[in-house]
Structures are given as C-alpha cells and as structure tokens.
C-alpha cells in the first residue's frame, strides 16, 4: 500500500438537515497511487464536493477509513487536521481565494508561515512562483493580475509546501478557455515533471480527458471508473 497516497475504505458522510438525513456519500472506496492524475466527475448533488472536502481533510467522514500518505485521518482533532492540510494537501479553488490585500509573494508564503517555517520563506516562495512562470510578478497584488495569473499564484501556493497531493476544485471554471487551457497544461506538467499527485474535481469532460483516470460519482456512490477515451455509456 506504500505506493498509495490516498486510500478510502467504505467512506460515508451523512448530513442532518432538520428532520431529514442526507447521505452525501453512501460508501466510497478508492485508491490513488503516488504521481497519478485523477479526475472526479459527476452531476451536481452526486457527492463530488463532499468527497473533495473529505479528501482535503476539511471534513471528517461519518464512517469508514481514510488514509492519506500513510496517516489515518478520520480520528484526528481539528488542529491535527490543520497540520495535515498544511503539509500534505495543496488546494486550488475555482475562485482562486487569494488574500486581496497581500502580494503574490505573501500569498504564497502563507502556508510556510502556518508550517512554522522561519527562515528562507521568501526564497522558497519566490522559487515556486518562478516555477509557475510568475517570477516577474511577485510584488503584484491579486487585483493587478489577470485571472490566469491569479490561478497561477494559487497553484504556487498549493505547491510551496511540497504536498502529497494537489486538490483542484474546478480550477478552470472561472477562466476563459485559453487561460483555462494554460492552467490545465501547467497542472499536468507539474504532475509529469514533479510527480505531484493531482486530483481534479470537474464536470468539464475536456478537463477530465487530460487525466489518466476518471472516477464518476452518482448519488454518493462511484458509478464508473475508466481511462479517458474509453468512456462507458
């Protein structure tokens, strides 16, 4: 199991909305190998977001087991979960979620600060920004950057702690098709060159087509798993 970054076993998540219980995840088991690029697809209400929150350690499963990079996650407390998110997960959001008042550099430094790193933060953040092609924009604030550039800052922020996986939630959803394609290309390139495990949550099949494996959800269960191009009906 050592080549598995993510190992889910029969994970369920139940929300209580007043009197009604909603089974957002009804028992999901999956394994993702180190260095893999996987797309998670499914219509809205299929449990996509819930699965992403659990994979990203933002939320705990109601039952089942979740092992991330060799650590059992479902029993950890809030602060321990925060530490796992900090070291092992890099988030890329649809709406970028950069701090508007801070420069690109300060945004990328943020995870290093929460990691307790004292020296060399600036150097490391600068290097990471250079690796996503923003070496000349490190002093700019988000409002001075285009959407594609903002998402590059977000990717640099996700990578700066060298996490076990990058979790991208509709990373191209707020971008025009050209910068969307560039961002996707960047993510795939990082996956190939650095071996970063990549999980993309999307409902865009052209995005999913770039990955190595697609997991399709429906009604809180895995409906299908396939290699792009060999889509079952």
């Amino acid at each position, binding site marked *: 199991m050592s080549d598995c970054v993510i190992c889910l076993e029969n994970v369920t998540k139940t929300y209580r909305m007043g009197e009604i219980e909603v089974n957002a995840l009804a028992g999901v088991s999956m394994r993702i190998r180190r260095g893999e690029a996987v797309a998670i697809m499914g219509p809205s209400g299929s449990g996509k977001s819930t699965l992403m929150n659990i994979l990203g350690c*933002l*939320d705990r499963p109601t039952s089942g087991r979740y092992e991330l990079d060799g650590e059992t996650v479902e029993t950890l407390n809030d602060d321990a979960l*925060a530490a796992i998110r*900090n070291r092992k997960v890099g*988030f890329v959001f649809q709406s970028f*979620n950069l701090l508007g*008042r801070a420069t690109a550099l300060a945004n990328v430094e943020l*995870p290093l600060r929460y990691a307790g790193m004292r020296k060399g933060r600036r150097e490391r953040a600068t290097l990471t920004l250079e690796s996503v092609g923003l070496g000349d924009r490190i002093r700019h604030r988000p409002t001075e950057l285009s959407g594609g550039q903002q998402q590059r800052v977000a990717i640099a922020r996700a990578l700066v702690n060298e996490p076990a996986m990058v979790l991208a939630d509709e990373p191209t959803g707020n971008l025009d098709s050209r910068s969307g394609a560039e961002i996707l290309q960047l993510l795939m390139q990082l996956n190939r060159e650095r071996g970063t495990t990549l999980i993309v949550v999307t409902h865009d099949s052209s995005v999913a087509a770039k990955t190595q494996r697609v997991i399709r959800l429906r009604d809180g269960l895995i409906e299908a798993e396939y290699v792009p191009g060999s889509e079952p009906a």
Partner: protein
Amino acid sequence: MFLAQNLLEALESLTSNKLRSGLTMLGIVIGVAAVIAMLSVGQGASASITGAINEIGTNLIFVIPGGQEDVTVTRPLTMGDARAIADPLQAPSVLLVAPMIQSRVDVTVGGQSHSTQLQAVTADYQQVRNVTLSDGEFINDDQVLGRASVVVLGSDVADNLFGTTVGLVGETVRLQGQPFRIIGVEESKGGSGFASQDDHVTIPLTTAQARFTAQRGGAPDRLDMILAQSVTTEAVPQAVTEIEEILRLRHRVQVGKDDFTTFKQQDILQTAAQITGVLTIFLGGIAAISLLVGGIGIMNIMLVSVTERTREIGLRKALGARRRDILIQFLTESATLSLAGGIIGILLGWFMAWAVGQIATATGNDFTPVVGVDSILLATIFSAAVGLFFGIYPASRAASLQPVEALRYE
C-alpha cells in the same frame, strides 16, 4: 506565526478600512484622553495643595479654644497657657510657641480703605510660620514689650493701598483710625481670592491687647490661637501629647472632655490627600466607563469584521491555520486598534492637561497638571487590555469556524 508578521498584517487589515478603524478607535481615544487628563489634573491639584500646606511648615501644631460639642464650659486660651507650653521643662518636644489674636480690621491711608485680617503675634511667629519679608523687618521682642504701634503688611494689602510692595517702610497707615508705622512688607505666598495667604496685617500681640481687645470689652489675656513648633517633624505627635497634658492640667479637664482642640499640619495634609484621592478615583471611574464603552465598540466592529472575512478565515484554515493562529490574528488586530487609540488618547489627554494648566496660569492660579509616567503606563496597559479582552469573543468565534462552511460562505 510571529509577532512582527502578525502586527504587519493587522495594520494592513486595519488601514484597508480607515474610516471604520478611526471611528472605532475614537471610543478608546476619548476614554484614554479622559483618564490622562483627569489623573494629571488630580495630581497637579494635590501637588499644588500639598505644596501650599508644606510651605506653612510640617512641624506646626495649632491649638484653638473649644472642644467637642458636648463640652459646654469652655475656658479661653490665655497667655499663661502659651507660657506653660513654651516651658522646655514641661514640654521638651516644643521648640517655639506663637500666641495669636485674630480679628477683622479696616486699614486706611490717605482716604483709601481696605478691610483685612488682623494678626497680633510675638516675634517668634516669624520663625514658626516661616514668614519672609520682601522689605523691612518683622516685629521684634522690644516692640512686643513696648507695645509699639508698628505693622507688617501682607503683600496684597500693600498692593491694594499703595499699588506697590517696595519703599513703604516708614510710612504710616491707620488701623481702626489709630496710626501705625510700617516696618516691613511680607513676600507673597501665593493663592488668590478666598485662598489668598497675603491678605492680612501683623502687629505686636501686646499692642492689640492694649488697643483693640480692651476696647471690645474682652479679657485682655485671651488668645484666639496658639501656634507651636515641635523640635523635629518626627516629634510632632509627642509635642501634641505634651501640649494636651499641660492644657488639661491648667484647665482642669479630664481626657475626652477637652475644652480646646489641637490639630497638626500633618492632619491637614492627610485630609487634603484624602480629598484629592477621592476626587481622582471618582474622575478615574468616569474615565474607566468611557473606556468600557470604547471596548464594546471594538468588540462590535470585530464581530462585523469576522463575519465579513469568513471566507478568508476558511481559506487560512484550509492552508493549515490552527485555531490558535486565527485567534492570535484577530486578537492582534483588536489589541492594535485599541493600543493605537490609547497612544492617540495619551497625546490628546496630555494636550488637554496642558491646556488646563495654561487656563489656570492665565487666571492667576499657581497650578501645574502633572502627566506622570505611571498614568501613561496605566493608560497604555489598560487600553491594550481592553482591546484583548473585548477581542476575545470575536476572535474565538473566528477561530471556531468550520473550514468547510467558512469556505462556502458568500
């Protein structure tokens, strides 16, 4: 997370909404300014009062006739009493004694008239009360023995009648129509209006007994007050005991039935300190209430800020911020806000104290507000504490937000 970085971020966040931060700070500014101004005016008043009292002398004891309310038979203080107290065998702790008669008197010169206080004393009075002269000499023993018609003018009296305090020695003034030769003018001791210590004239005790008391039909021997000076400041309580024993023996009264009252300079000092202390506490209380109101304003704005920045908090948590990191971030913000308000308040309070001092000086009161290091420290620590205290609730609300819900917040 580190202090400098936190502080920088807090400042960035606060300056991004200057108007709101400024208005929130205003509560603390006013509160701290009030604290500083009140304390400094209070301290200045108490310094001015103790200074005035100290000038009279700290080893001074006053004896006046009349005792507790239930004592009906009152013997007057007499020259005999004064002589007994002055006897070093009976009262070894007493250094000097100054018997005194007081009354009102009209002083006239060349058609000008001025009503003032008459003090009839012996030569020792000068040393007991620390009288200094700007011109001429004080009454001497010969003039007391010879019932001389000489007078020493207080500086206010000289100013009033002659418009000057110099070159008056040798001139004649009339007290109740009788001519007195001026032998000296006192140096001003300060104070104004009712508090003036310079509005009086001084003549030999014997002269007053012969010329004025006899006319009024009273006992010629009778005194209005005996002033005594102890050998040292430490000997004041011992001297008081000795004086009381002598007077009880001479007046044949028991302990607790005294027909005279002694009080010490130190009692007056203590009373003054008590009054100014109560005043300071009272004013400080008002100031503390305004600080409290300011603190509630900070809490209110911090709660709004936490709600507005729910998404940011969610993001920070997603990136690995622990509960503590968020808590510290918001506490730093509220403490910075409050502390900045405190510093501005200190400057404003300082200015207010200075203005009060200027007004006091302009109206002729010798009074300097003192802005002490202690009140500045107090205000600084207190304002930071207010920020921290009222920041705790909003910050802990921010810290306990769940990342999933916070990220979903629009």
